[in-house]
């Protein structure tokens, strides 16, 4: 398998993550495309033998942060990205719409951590490396993301039970 084949094999996972992160499918694929183009331009920086997936997600993180910055500067074009981001969850009590609303309410830095842990099943250390933050930051963002998501989906007030001594 060539390097390019490996990258291509990871595209579905990059798309899944981007879809959950960005919301609308077109915008998510734009993010993936920008990521792939950037990764290709910087491919000499990837060390063969190291984790290509982690590297690509780190590149995507950087591209995404830049996009957010630019979007804040030209928020006039934001409306068009508001489509139906989440396809319906198959069954169960949790409505896809509630999940979508919950995800939309999370700050980007917390959402990134939640998605890398839950969707990508990355270790906390891998997440820390991909996002360029200490592992303690990963843990607190993850905790806050879950609290906020629960509030958004169930209306339950955030837990004050963390760090309890029993």
């Amino acid at each position: 398998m060539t390097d390019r084949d490996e990258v291509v094999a990871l595209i579905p996972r990059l798309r899944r993550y981007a879809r959950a992160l960005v919301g609308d499918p077109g915008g998510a694929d734009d993010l993936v495309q920008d990521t792939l183009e950037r990764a290709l331009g910087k491919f000499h920086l990837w060390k063969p033998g190291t984790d290509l997936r982690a590297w690509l997600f780190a590149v995507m993180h950087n591209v995404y942060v830049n996009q957010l910055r630019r979007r804040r500067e030209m928020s006039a074009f934001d409306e068009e990205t508001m489509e139906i981001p989440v396809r319906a969850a198959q069954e169960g009590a949790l409505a896809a719409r509630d999940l979508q609303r919950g995800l939309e309410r999370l700050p980007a830095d917390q959402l990134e951590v939640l998605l890398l842990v839950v969707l990508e099943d990355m270790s906390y250390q891998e997440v820390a490396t991909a996002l360029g933050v200490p592992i303690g930051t990963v843990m607190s963002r993850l905790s806050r993301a879950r609290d906020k998501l629960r509030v958004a989906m169930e209306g339950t007030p955030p837990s004050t039970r963390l760090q309890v001594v029993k």
Partner: protein
Amino acid sequence: MSEVRISEADLQAYIDGRLAEQRRSAIAAELAKDPELTAQVEAYRAHSDALRAAFLPVLEEPVPVRLLDATRPRRRGSWAIAAALVCTLLGGVAGWAISEAYRPATEARRVEEPLPMRAAVAHAVYSPEVRHPVEVGADQEAHLVAWLSKRLGAPVRAPKLESVGYRLMGGRLLPGESGPVAHFMYQCEKGTRVTLYVRTEAPDHGETAFRYADEGNVRVFYWVDHTFGYALSSADISREQLYKVANAVYQQLNP
């Protein structure tokens, strides 16, 4: 019974199933005594499951061609080969224009002159495409326009040219001299294609009149308004016919 302190990190790792067995069972024992915390853990796990289920179908979707294309190297070397190939195929000035366009930028060529030339090159390269004439089809026109607007940093529009016999096929993003370029392709019933090349112009550029250029076998009408430079190209229709189409474009974009 010993007391167990449950930290934030413990709780998250417990939810994600990442604790070593001994720690896991210690936490589980504590949770068993605390219904509220147990409910919290269960809610978090349910949300994780819902999240995975909601986005699992994305993994099964076919990968869009534009993403596959993005993994192909586009260094000058491969472009030079492509340019040479097109030279052989098309011959004439279109080929010359390509080698010009990919020559390292020199002072004099930078301002306005390359607009019709670059538009002609783009037309010569993409309009003969049978399988991939556009990157995003007209069936996704709203997305196409929004995407290109976002990339160009200003609201781009795809004019409606049905009144002069042309229907939008779609468009693509192109690399321009100093940034992204929007490229729309139109086709008439007979299969003849015209392309509209749209790039952003420096703010102090002002406006220019309608101009015409022959770039080898490609005819180009072009003009600049305050935000954009536009060039409409065709290799198949007469100057008079193209003028009619260009007028329709101009009237819609510069009302």
